[in-house]
């Protein structure tokens, strides 16, 4: 609640003086960038979409009205819309993402933990590839829930769904993921 109040204050400040948008940028950059990186799996594309998202937000912040949706949720929506329109324009041609992501994961795991073994790395890579085979909405749900650690309410606001629907859809997505993942492992 305190975060929301702070966010609201920052938004009002940014509306009055666009130079204060910097504070909101600091607050949300990591989240948006990581969400987009997880969604698209390409560093460059994630950067492009992040850049576009924040520029759009800066341009339209005077139109933003604090109703049921927080500024964060609004920002996620912009990011999702930009990503969707990018995919639509580029006809979903994503060729090198697997390699790209594998490299990312391998760098990360080797750096973070010494006990990481080949099997775990292989399992995680498999899991990510399985996620990428789900639909865009299912991917959004899983990434927001398990990567970004958002609550059902927050996800509901970002994706314009009810909390119950989010729960149901997430359960289904997970079951689907499990089946595909199980088949892959087999």
């Amino acid at each position, binding site marked *: 609640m305190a975060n929301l109040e702070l966010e609201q204050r920052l938004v009002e400040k940014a509306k009055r003086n666009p130079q204060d948008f910097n504070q909101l940028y600091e607050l949300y950059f990591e989240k948006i960038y*990581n969400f987009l990186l997880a969604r698209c799996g390409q560093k460059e594309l994630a950067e492009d979409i992040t850049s576009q998202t924040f520029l759009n937000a*800066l341009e339209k912040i005077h139109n933003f009205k604090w109703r049921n949706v927080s500024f964060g949720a609004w920002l996620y929506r912009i990011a999702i819309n930009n990503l969707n329109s990018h995919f639509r324009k580029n006809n979903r041609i994503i060729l090198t993402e697997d390699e790209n992501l594998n490299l990312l994961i391998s760098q990360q795991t080797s750096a973070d933990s010494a006990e990481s073994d080949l099997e775990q790395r292989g399992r995680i890579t498999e*899991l990510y590839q399985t996620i990428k085979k789900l639909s865009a909405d299912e991917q959004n749900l899983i990434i927001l829930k398990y990567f970004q650690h958002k609550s059902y309410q927050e996800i509901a606001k970002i994706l314009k769904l009810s909390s119950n629907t989010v729960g149901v859809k997430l359960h289904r997505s997970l079951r689907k993921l499990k089946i595909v993942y199980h088949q892959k492992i087999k």
Partner: protein
Amino acid sequence: MDFLNEKNTEDLIVKDLQQLGQQLQQTNQAFKLALAHKLRAKVLSQFVNPVKKLCSLRWAWLTAPAALLLLVILAEAAEYSGLEIKPYQYLKTTVAPAVNRQIKITATAIIEEVKKIADNALKAKLNPATTQNKSAIQNKTVPNDLLELTSVNPLILFQPLTEQQQQILKEEIKSQLGKNEQMAPNLQPSLPAQQQDDYQYSLDFQPTEPLVLENDVADTFLNEADKLPESLPSADQEPVVKKLIDSPPTTDALVPPLTAPIKISYQPSENIKLEDVPPTTKAGEAAGTPSTIMTPPTPPSQPYSNINIPPAGQKSAGSITELGVAAPAEQANGQEKTECQNRFRLILKINDLSKIDDQFNNRIDGLDIEITEYYSSSQNLTIILTLPSSQYYELKKSLASLTARPDYFEEEIIYNEAKCQETVVTIYVNKRISFFEWLISNFR
């Protein structure tokens, strides 16, 4: 592969998902800074000059005049078909002419100023000494013994009068005033117009022009005027000379100015007989309305013998107006050299009189034109005005330049004798309200 039973699989997937999420949490500081810089640049570029922003709205500049034009066309069409759009009519008849007038006045003032500046520059080139002197006047360092007032051409040099010259001038003024006393019983109009002008000059001259008439001279004028003998009529209240000024002294005075026409009201004396009045208009007779025609009286054979001057101290309410009547009479005596008080009957042809009638009745009092007759029939409204030619032509000129002008005029001279014309002017009015608005606003 025991762990692949259902429960274990789910737990494992969730665990792996969380681990994957952790591994994908990356910090990209370089990109973060670059984007922050980009955003800052964007913020700065958002503060554009509002004027520039306004000018950049090309579509607005293009569409706004087009839309305005379209609206005007629609309003005109509606008005033509008989629909009255009051705000538009108000804009057209009141606001637009007022703005036009203001623009004209401003333009004239600017042109005059420019001319003045150009003249001054030219004069400065031709005579640098004058310019120096002028600047000295502006700086209030005028030498007392010499003062130059520059007019356009030629250069007039004013010098203070010597004692002797002042004496001569005083005597001249005294003698003139003495003459005036003698002429008082025969009254002023017998003075030649030029002489009246001289008096007017001298009176207007005294209080306002101390620079030109140095020191005592102005005082002398004042004193002499104050010392008028008591035998002069109303000299204590109103100087005789002033009266003379009020009375129209020249032939031009017969033509009253358009903006302030003279209302003639007179008490008929014995010798000014109504039989001598020229025949009245036929329209008035035909309508059978009571005639209120005010025609200038025919000049008597001896113009001023009938006018009684009230005794001194007794203020006559009609004294000035009597003079006002007497002056045209005097002028009418020599009709060859004067302009006749022509009569113009203005007949306004209107399609639908019913709406107009009330409006016109209500507002007719606001007009300063001498309306001699006013009556209406089923299809037209006749207003008979007695206008001098000059005023009529002014009216006609103004009507022609009017946006809501009458459709056309018809003029017919029905009476022409000794340069006195009686003309019937039929005006066909289509845009009636606008026309009346204009008529009233111009002759108020």
